């Protein structure tokens, strides 16, 4: 299962690929994700311009740190509306880590904060049976096109919050009890883990997203 990254992606560079638009969120590890997307074969645009985001066909929403700060940044810059416009115009969207959490209706971080409402359910803090944050690799049981070839992959997580048993769940992991590791609702995807830090398995998920139509 081990390949050099260049080998993983060479096949896909030969075929035509839709441009991927990475939202240049100030609270995120954008550079790492950009690099991973490029290695996974994306023709990449990195932007925080709401017009470019609204007209994008394939979006990636990164995020680390606090849900509230990330959501505030989206609304203050008109990016929440731009994302909604893009999705209603048929764009696909992949949220990563806190970007995945932002897709949900709400998070209970500091009371209740509304999210983008593109995925049903609520993000909650782990119940404290195991130490939080979860920092490390965890085995995921997944299905669907995003996880093609890595249905039982191991991915790298850094999180204190997660959705539990979300209706749109496509991948599940266990950390002192089951939690939702990834979701899909029509063209909107979210992964709780860091694909850009999950070696070949993570690059495979990104490649699957880039190739998905």
């Amino acid at each position: 299962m081990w390949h050099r990254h260049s080998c993983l992606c060479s096949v896909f560079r030969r075929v035509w690929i839709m441009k991927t638009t990475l939202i240049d969120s100030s609270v995120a590890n954008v550079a790492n994700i950009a690099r991973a997307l490029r290695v996974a074969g994306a023709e990449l645009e990195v932007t925080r311009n709401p017009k470019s985001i609204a007209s994008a066909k394939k979006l990636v929403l990164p995020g680390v740190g606090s849900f509230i700060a990330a959501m505030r940044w989206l609304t203050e810059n008109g990016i929440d509306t731009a994302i909604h416009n893009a999705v209603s115009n048929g764009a696909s969207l992949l949220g990563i880590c806190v970007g995945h959490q932002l897709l949900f209706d709400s998070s209970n971080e500091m009371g209740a904060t509304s999210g983008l409402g593109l995925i049903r359910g609520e993000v909650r803090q782990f119940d404290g049976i195991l130490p939080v944050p979860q920092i490390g690799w965890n085995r995921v049981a997944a299905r669907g096109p995003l996880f093609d070839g890595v249905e039982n992959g191991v991915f790298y997580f850094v999180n204190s919050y997660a959705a539990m048993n979300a209706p749109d769940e496509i991948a599940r992991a266990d950390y002192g009890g089951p939690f939702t590791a990834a979701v899909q609702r029509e063209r909107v995807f979210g992964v709780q883990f860091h694909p850009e830090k999950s070696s070949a398995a993570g690059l495979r998920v990104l490649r699957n997203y880039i190739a998905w139509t």
Partner: protein
Amino acid sequence: MDVIPSLDLLDGQVVRLLHGDFARVTAYGDPEAVLDSLDVPRGSRLHIVDLEASRSGKPVETEIVPRLASRGLRIQAGGGIRSLADARMWIEAGAEKVVIGTVAADAPEVLRSIVNDLGTDRVIAAIDVRDGIVRVAGWERDATASLAEVLARVEELGIGEVLITDISKDGAMRGPSFALYRSLKTKMRIIASGGVSTISDVVSLSRIGSVGACVIGRALLDGRIRLAEARARVATPNAIPERIIPCLDVRDGRVVKGVNFVDIRDAGDPVECAIRYEAEGGDELVILDISATDANRSAALDVVHRVSESLFIPLTVGGGVRTIEDFRALLRAGADRVAINTAAIRDPQLIADCAREFGVQAVVLSCDAKRMGDHFEAMVRGGKESSGIDAVEWCRRAEELGAGEILLTSVDRDGTNSGYDIELLRAVTSIVKIGVIASGGAGNVEHFRDAIEAGGARAVLAASLFHDRRLSIGDVKRFLASEGIPVR
């Protein structure tokens, strides 16, 4: 694997004996109050030992059983059961099973009569072992049969469960006898007992195929293990893989490796090494900058940047981090996590400041520990100088301050290939909840297993072993998997 709380009873009270010595008693109080404090849910198995009976041969604590059974607990009672009449007393009092020790080893005909009368599923055979020899009668004398003979005899009777206690480990918090449990040849479900003192001990036991349950006494009573957490961890023993972390010691932009922190050799280009390690299955990469001067530190930043550009696993960088600005510069250069060592000892607040600024997941305490008589001291300046601070206490303090993980290096073992310092690892892993990365001393695949299994490490680091290609990361992972330890 089932996790079974265990209460030793003497004069109606919950007690512990150190090394089975009736002269060394610690009292914990009334059984029901103890069960409340341990949060033992309905439906749990509960192991009780009638200590007076184990010595005198006459059950005296049977009246407690109906009270415990009324809480929905499934009681397995032991201690001094030497006749069918004794066994019946416990079952009639409401115990689900009886735990038969002395006669299992000494009087097979009595054990047979108990099994015939009560049925095999009502009987757990108990064998106490010290240094591989079966011990009986409240641990005060050797049995006449060998361990293998006793096991074979019990299995022949159709008994499904055998409780094996290593009494040299019991109550001493030094960890269970993993090697003993691994070596046992039996089809029976083994209940491991003795020495279980950390969550990691419970997880490690659950990975040994023949071990079906473990009993925990003192570690629950002392609050070292929470029952709910232990049960959660063993419910999904394979979910969280243990990590193998290759380390690059970098000086002046080149990978080097020293023995005992001196005698440094050149070992190659860091980017090439990093790519090879990820391809081999490294779960994370550590870069330790051992440059001597500030000028060379900016060379190290460049190394971090170049390595991070080629790497898709987490990258931890340490060495020479003195300020929050140094920390930030390494994160900007591409590190996911930064290890702080000497500077944190001089100014512990640096840990708290960095945790607040960058999140606990980014903060790794790097502790170089050296044995000094009966304790370990935290070393500074690349392991060359003692700080005078107790290393174990320092790790506990760092967790409190906000470190997300501890990179614990044995200065004594570093570069010796003689194995990780298990005693040092246990001393730290038994008092912190955050992960500990074992470092210093790797020489063969068993060393990696022991650091995880007995040392309680959540990750194991090695440098020269991988550089010199004496072992590959794949070799280590294949061995760990064959020993039941989950790897990616």
